[in-house]
């Protein structure tokens, strides 16, 4: 018998999930449903849309309106869902590859439009499902099956990308601190506009093994020791920032929301009749 929370929001008949031992995806998924629970949202008013990849399997386990779409296109489908029914709380679950490589264009344009969608990116720095190829967020120098001598690409800072593209809520959390992540998802859902939450998670099976990062626990300790809250991070010198990364709420803004603007056009015509 699972916990009340899991029983309420999961299709428990599909559990246990397929994620590897120590994979952080389950922690992020729980954080999302806990945020939904805290906000007391009606399950029928929530639509979870996912793309393809390990993270995107989450939609199949969750008991809401769910849509498991094609690779990289979760945001495109989610845009359609949101425009068809703007009352829905549309939450996109995607991975670093799905979101920023295959779906990179959808990401920047969804952010640019400031459409009221909450996107949670499970960033595990690698393509796990297909066997450990390097992704746009694999740190420079790290290894993947397609980068056996180290990745020569510069890696994306997804939060900077989302902010620059026009998101009105941007934050980063880690699976070491799920309470922060829960709060961030809550804020993202509450924000009337495009919300981008980067959840740093772990892939012990591929990214961890390829880069000798140890077991799941070692990878979580790494997150604990190297994630620095934004207020403290800003006070660090460039030298002290070396090897650290910033977490917390990174941007909050306000802009016209896409579906509202769209409906204004529709309304302007209905008045003329």
């Amino acid at each position, binding site marked *: 018998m699972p916990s009340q929370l899991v029983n309420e929001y999961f299709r428990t008949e599909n559990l246990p999930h397929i994620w590897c031992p120590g994979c952080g995806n389950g922690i992020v998924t*729980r954080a999302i449903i806990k945020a939904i629970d805290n906000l007391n949202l009606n399950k029928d008013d929530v639509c979870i849309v996912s793309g393809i990849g390990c993270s995107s399997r989450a939609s199949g386990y969750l008991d809401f309106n769910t849509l498991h779409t094609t690779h990289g296109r979760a945001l495109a489908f989610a845009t359609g869902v949101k425009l068809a029914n703007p009352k829905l709380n549309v939450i996109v679950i995607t991975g670093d590859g799905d979101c920023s490589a295959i779906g990179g264009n959808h990401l920047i344009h969804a952010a640019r439009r400031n459409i009221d969608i909450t996107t949670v990116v499970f960033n595990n720095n690698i393509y796990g499902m297909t066997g450990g190829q390097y992704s746009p967020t694999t740190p420079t120098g790290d290894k993947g099956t397609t980068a056996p001598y180290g990745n020569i690409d510069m890696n994306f800072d997804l939060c900077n990308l989302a902010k620059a593209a026009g998101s009105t809520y941007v934050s980063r959390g880690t699976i070491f601190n799920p309470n922060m992540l829960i709060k961030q998802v809550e804020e993202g859902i509450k924000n009337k506009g495009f919300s981008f939450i980067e959840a740093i998670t772990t892939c012990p099976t591929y990214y961890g093994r390829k880069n000798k990062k140890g077991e799941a626990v070692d990878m979580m300790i790494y997150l604990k020791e190297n994630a620095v809250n934004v207020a403290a991070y800003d006070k660090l010198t460039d030298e002290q920032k070396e090897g650290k990364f910033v977490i917390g709420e990174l941007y909050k803004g306000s802009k016209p929301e896409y579906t509202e603007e769209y409906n204004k056009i529709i309304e302007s015509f209905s008045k003329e009749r």
Partner: protein
Amino acid sequence: MSTKTEQTLNVDKKWCKGCGICVAFCPKDVLEIKDGKVNIKDLEACIKCGQCELRCPDYAIYLGGK
């Protein structure tokens, strides 16, 4: 929701994949991995902080019920 005093620690071994995250981050050393699965070794020491539940990727350990 049950109050903190009414809560107990529950383990579902069928869902546990033995990653050891709950064991590592339990502040009171309540848990251990035994035969590849989580095992409650010292329930008396549990302070019901819920850190294990928050970080269990497999929903195999949680506080709840009476």
